[in-house]
C-alpha cells in the first residue's frame, strides 16, 4: 500500500494557477469564437501569471523557514518563492510583448497555453528538492519551450530554432539524467540534503555525476561551452519567446544550479567552485568576443546573454551568502533589461517586417524616442552603468567574488565588460548617431502601428531597471531572505 503524503496546496499555488490557465486556454482554443480568441487568451494567460505572481509573493512571505514538503519532493522556501516571483513577472511582461505579434489566429490559444505551462514548469523546477523532481521540472518547461520556439512556422528560422533547441536540449537533459543516475548510484539518495549527508564525498562516481549535472544545467543557462544552441535559437524563435527564454529560463537554471550545488554537494565545494569559475570565464570570453561581430540584434543579444550567464555564474562560484544575494539581486534588473531589449527589437521588427540588424536600427531613437531611450537604458544597464540596477548588480557580483578571495575573477569580469562596451554601444550608436535616411526605406504611408501593450511592457522593464538602482535596500532584503534558505 502506497502511503499518500500530505499535500501543501498553498506551496503549489503558483504552479496550479498557471496549469489551470493552460488548461483553460486549451479549451478556449476550440470553444471560444475566433473573433475574440486572441484577447481572451492573452487575458487568461496574463491572469494566470498575475495569480502566480501574487501567490509567489505570499508564499515568500509565509515561508520564513525553508523545508521540504510533499514527501520531500519540493522545497517550500524563499529561494524558490522569490524565483517564482521573478519567473511570473517575466511571464507577465512576456504576455504584454506577445500580444501585438502577428500570429496566425489558429494557434494563438495554444501559444498562450504553452507560455503558461512553461512558466509553471520553471516555478516547479526551482522548487525541486530531489533529482527526480529536478528532471521532471526541467523536461516540463523545456518541452513547452521547444514547441514555443517552433510555433510560428511562417517565420523563417522558427522551425529550425525549435528543432535545434530540441536536439541540443535533449542532449543536455540526457546528460543531467545520466548525472543524476550516477549521483544516486554513488550516494544511494535522491534528495539533495540527503546526498550531502550520505558521506560519499570524493567518490569518483559522485564527482562524475556532479560534473554531468553541472553540464546539464549549464545547457539550460546557456553558459559556454554549452551555449552553441543559443544564438540560432534566440535568433530564430519568435521575439516574444526569445524574450521570455532569455529572462525566465536564466532565473530558473541559475537559481537551481546554485541550490543543487550548495545543498547537495557541500563536500565537493573545492571542486565545483573551480568548475563554475571555469565555465564563467569561458562564457564571458565566448559571449563577449562573439557578440562583437554580430549584425543581427537578436543574435547579438543572444551572445550577450551567454556572457551574462557567465557573469552570473561568478556569484555561484563564490559559494557564499553574499553570492546568493548577488545572484538574486542581479537577476531582477537582468530580467528587466533582457525582456525590455527584446521587446524593443520586437517593436522595430513589427515596424519593418524584417529581422532587426544594427543597420536597420539607424535613426530609430529619433523616430520613436521612447523605445530609443528605453533601449539605450537597457544597453547601458547591461554594461553596468549607473542609473540602472545593472550597476549595483555588477558591484555585488564583484563583492561576492572578492569575499571568496578570488580577486582574479573580478579582473576577468572587468575585462569582459570592457569588451562588451563595444557592442552594447554599437546598438546605441546605430539608434542615435545614424540617420534613418541611410536606410532608404520604402515609404508605406501612415504611422507605425500603435501597440499600447508592448509600450507598457517596455515601460515596466524600464521602471524595474531604473528603480532597482534606487531601491537597492528593499531588494537586497528580499535577496537576503531568499539566500538564507540555502545552507551556506
Amino acid at each position, binding site marked *: 500500500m502506497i502511503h499518500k503524503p500530505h499535500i501543501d496546496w498553498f506551496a503549489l499555488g503558483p504552479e496550479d494557477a498557471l496549469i489551470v490557465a493552460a488548461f483553460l486556454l486549451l479549451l478556449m482554443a476550440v470553444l471560444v469564437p475566433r473573433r475574440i480568441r486572441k484577447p481572451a487568451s492573452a487575458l487568461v494567460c496574463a491572469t494566470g501569471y498575475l495569480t502566480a505572481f501574487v501567490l509567489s509573493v505570499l508564499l515568500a512571505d509565509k515561508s520564513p523557514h525553508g523545508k521540504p514538503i510533499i514527501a520531500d519532493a519540493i522545497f517550500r522556501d524563499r529561494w524558490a518563492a522569490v524565483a517564482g516571483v521573478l519567473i511570473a513577472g517575466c511571464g507577465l511582461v512576456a504576455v504584454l510583448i506577445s500580444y501585438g505579434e502577428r500570429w496566425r489566429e489558429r494557434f494563438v490559444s495554444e501559444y498562450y497555453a504553452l507560455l503558461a505551462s512553461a512558466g509553471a514548469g520553471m516555478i516547479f523546477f526551482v522548487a525541486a528538492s530531489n533529482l527526480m523532481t529536478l528532471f521532471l521540472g526541467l523536461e516540463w518547461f523545456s518541452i513547452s519551450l521547444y514547441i514555443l520556439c517552433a510555433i510560428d512556422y511562417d517565420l523563417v528560422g522558427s522551425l529550425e530554432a525549435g528543432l535545434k533547441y530540441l536536439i541540443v536540449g535533449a542532449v543536455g537533459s540526457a546528460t543531467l539524467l545520466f548525472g543524476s543516475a550516477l549521483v544516486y548510484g554513488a550516494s544511494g539518495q535522491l534528495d539533495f540534503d540527503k546526498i550531502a549527508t550520505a558521506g560519499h564525498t570524493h567518490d569518483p562516481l559522485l564527482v562524475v555525476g556532479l560534473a554531468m549535472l553541472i553540464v546539464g544545467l549549464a545547457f539550460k543557462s546557456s553558459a559556454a561551452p554549452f551555449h552553441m544552441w543559443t544564438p540560432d535559437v534566440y535568433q530564430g524563435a519568435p521575439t516574444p519567446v526569445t524574450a521570455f527564454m532569455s529572462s525566465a529560463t536564466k532565473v530558473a537554471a541559475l537559481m537551481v544550479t546554485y541550490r543543487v550545488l550548495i545543498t547537495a554537494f557541500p563536500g565537493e565545494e573545492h571542486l565545483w567552485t573551480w568548475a563554475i569559475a571555469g565555465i564563467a570565464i569561458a562564457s564571458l570570453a565566448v559571449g563577449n568576443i562573439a557578440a562583437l561581430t554580430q549584425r543581427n540584434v537578436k543574435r547579438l543579444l543572444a551572445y550577450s546573454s551567454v556572457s551574462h550567464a557567465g557573469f552570473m555564474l561568478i556569484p555561484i562560484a563564490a559559494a557564499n551568502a553574499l553570492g546568493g544575494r548577488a545572484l538574486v539581486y542581479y537577476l531582477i534588473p537582468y530580467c528587466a533589461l533582457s525582456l525590455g531589449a527584446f521587446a524593443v527589437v520586437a517593436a522595430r521588427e513589427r515596424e519593418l517586417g524584417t529581422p532587426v540588424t544594427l543597420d536597420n536600427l539607424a535613426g530609430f531613437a529619433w523616430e520613436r524616442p521612447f523605445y530609443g531611450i528605453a533601449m539605450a537604458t537597457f544597453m547601458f544597464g547591461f554594461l553596468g*552603468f*549607473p542609473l540602472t540596477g545593472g550597476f*549595483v548588480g555588477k558591484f555585488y557580483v564583484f563583492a561576492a567574488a572578492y*569575499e571568496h578571495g578570488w*580577486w582574479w575573477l573580478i579582473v576577468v569580469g*572587468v575585462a569582459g565588460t*570592457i569588451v562588451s562596451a563595444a557592442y552594447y554601444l554599437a546598438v*546605441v*550608436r546605430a539608434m*542615435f548617431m545614424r540617420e534613418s535616411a541611410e536606410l532608404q526605406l520604402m515609404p508605406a504611408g501612415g504611422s507605425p502601428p500603435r501597440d499600447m501593450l508592448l509600450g507598457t511592457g517596455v515601460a515596466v522593464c524600464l521602471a524595474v531597471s531604473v528603480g532597482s538602482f534606487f531601491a537597492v535596500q528593499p531588494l537586497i532584503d528580499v535577496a537576503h531572505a531568499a539566500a538564507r534558505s540555502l545552507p551556506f
Partner: protein
Amino acid sequence: MNDWLTTILILLPIAGALLVWLAPLDRFWAGSIATLVSLVEVGFWILSVDRFQFGRSTLQFEQQQTWFRDLGVSYHVGQFAFSLWLVGLTTIVGAATIAYAWWVGRERARAYFGLMLFLTGAVVGVFTAQDLLVFYAFFEAMLIPLYVLIGVWGGPGRLGATLKFVVYTVAGSLLMLAAIVVYGLQQGTFDLTKMGPSSNEWLFLGFAVAFAVKAPLFPFHGWLPDAYREAPPEVAAVLSGVVSKAAAYGFLRIAVTKFPGPTHDTRVPILILATIGLVYGALLAFRAPDVRGVIAYSSLSQMGLITLGIFAVNDLGLSGAVLQMVNHGLISATLFLLAGMIERRAATGELALLGGMARGRPLLATILLTAGVMALAVPLSTAFAGEFLILAGLFQHFWVYAVIGAGAIVLAAMYTLRLISAVLHERVGPAVSDAALDLRVGELAVVVPLVALLVGLSAWPNAVSGHSFGSMPSSRISNAIVETPGGTNELAAAVPKSR
C-alpha cells in the same frame, strides 16, 4: 549633517534635464529653460560660497542617506573648500556653455539641452560625493551624456572619436570599480570620510589609471585629439574645462590621500610622466594645424602641470594645483568657445586658412588676446599665480621638475602666441571673408563673464588658493583632505618633511 544645499546643486540640473526632456518644448523654450536652470544653479553656488565657513576645514553642507546597508554604502555628499571651487567652476562653465548652445541653436534641442544639464549635475556629483560608490556612479554617469553629445552633434569623424573615447574611459573606470570593491570591502565601509589609508599598490594603480585616462595624462591621451576636435565646441569646453578636472580631483581626493604609501613609492614615475606630458603636450600644441588642436594639446600639457602640483604633495603644490584647476577650467572653456565662434565665421579651424581676423573685429581680437595672455601665464595673471605655486611646491620636492616646468611655460607662450597670430594677425586667410562679423552681443554675453572672472582672479588669486584647504596654513593638508579618524597626518608620515 543634513544640509540640502549640496543635494540641490546636484539635483537641480538633473531635474532641469528631466523637465526639458519630458515637456513638449520648442527649440527656443528648451534652450531658455536650460539656460535659466543653469543660471539658477550658479545662484545656488554663490549662495553656498556665502554660507561656506572658510575658517573651518571640515566637510560642510553634508548630507547622508543610507543606500544599502549590508556593504556600508550610503548617499553621502558634502563639500570641502576645494570642492566648492570646483563646483563653482562646473556651474559657471556649465551656464556659459549652455547659454552659448542656446544662442547658436542646436538641432534636436530638447535632447541636447537635457544632456548638457544632466552632465552638469553629474560633474557636480563627482566633486561632492563622499562615498566611493556614489563617486563612481557619478563618474560613470558623466560618460553617458558626453558619449551621446559627441556622437550625435559632433563633426564628421564623430563615430570614431566616440568609440575611442568610450573604450579608453570604460577600461579605466572599470579598473577603478574593481579597486573600489576591494578597497571598500577591506575597509568595511565605502564612506570616504571614514576610510583609512591603504598601502596596496594595485588598488592605487586601479584608481590612478582611471584618473589618468580621464584627465588625460601622457601615455593615456589617445582619445583626446579626436574627441576635442569632433565634439561641438561647447561640449569640448565642458570636456576639457570641467570633466578633466574631475580626474585631477580624483587624484587629490582619493589617490593621494587614501594611498599615501603607494603615492610615495610611485611618485617618481608619475612625476616623470606628468613632466613628459607637460612638455610633449606643449610641443604638439605648437605643431597642431588647427585651433582646437592647439587648445586640446595645451590641455594635455596643463593637466600634466596640475598633476605635478598634486604629486608634489605639499601645501604650495596642492594650493597651486587647485588654483590652476580653476584657472585652466575657465581658460580652456573660454578658448574652446572662442574656437567655436571662429569656426562659425570661417567654417574651418585650420590655422593655414585663417588669419587677419583682428582687422575690423576689435572685440574678437580683444577677447581672444586676453584669454590667450591668461593661458600663457603672463606675470600678474591668475595662471601665473597657479603655475608659480605649483613650481614652488615642486622646487621644494626636487628642483629638476621645477626647472622643466618653467621651461614648459616658455613653450606655452610659443603655442599661444602662434595661435593668436595665426588667427588674428598675418595676412587675411582664404577662409576669412569680409562679411564675417565681429562677436555679437550673445557671444559677448557668454565669454565676457568668463574673461572677467579670470581678470578678477588675477587680481586676487588668493581667493581660491588661500581658501582651499582651511585657514591654517601650516596644517592645511592634514586638516582638510586627510581626515583619518585618529587625526594623524598620513601624508606627513609618508612624505618626509625634510625635503
